[in-house]
């Protein structure tokens, strides 16, 4: 839990994490922005799939699921790339 800073028995706050290497922050921000945009697309795909499901369009629902899966795989790949670049530095 927390340790009081004021009063008796005070401990110093933990040091903030070290700054990322130059250029790496931009990469993370780019990944984050892309992730949020793609997630919005996935949310739209989910509503589209639900609509198609209610319509009885099996093919359309499957296509929406595949596209959503590709977006998810893209996100996983992006995480891996970021981990790889941070390890390389």
């Amino acid at each position, binding site marked *: 839990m927390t340790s009081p*800073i004021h009063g008796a028995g005070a401990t110093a706050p933990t040091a903030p994490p070290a700054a990322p290497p130059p250029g790496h922050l931009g990469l993370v921000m780019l990944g984050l922005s892309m992730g949020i945009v793609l997630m919005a697309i996935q949310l739209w795909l989910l509503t589209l799939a639900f609509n198609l499901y209610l319509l009885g369009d099996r093919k359309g629902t499957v296509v929406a699921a595949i596209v959503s899966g590709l977006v998810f795989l893209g996100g996983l790949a992006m995480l891996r790339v970021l981990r790889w670049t941070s390890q390389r530095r």
Partner: protein
Amino acid sequence: MSTNENDEILSNRTSEGRWHVEFPFEWDADDLVSRRQLLRWSVWASGALFASTGILAALSFTRDRRRGSLAAIVKASEVPVGEAHYFSYPGPEDQAVLLHLREGRFVAFSNKCTHLSCAVYWSKERGRLICPCHEGVFHPETGDVLAGPPPRPLPKIELREEDGTLYAVSETLT
């Protein structure tokens, strides 16, 4: 106001006031969420969205597009041309509408609006099926959406005429 009371009020306004005793938490103790963590969570959220879409796709293979069994509706002669007859199909709670569009031309639809399930009615003056809740308009021949917010056409009910009586055969989603 006494000096002691003033001191107490002042001490309550400082960072080490009474509230600090009652709520002994510091900003520094708050969990830091890094951009990288947020990115990781967003990818897991993306996975959850994919899983939901995948479940819908899997369910679409088990969903029957037709439902209902043969049921008598009304005698064809009891519905004049241009008029509608409301009935329940396939279940007693499922309202439907039968239209006599031209001589001998009958069509039937579920009259539950595909937007928010309001009851659709036949407007003879406009020659359209109307949802009064949000002005949804459906084509009487096909059940297709002509105007308004409904996202899908009305489910169509297949009809059969035998010995002057109209029967509902099944309800089809498209």
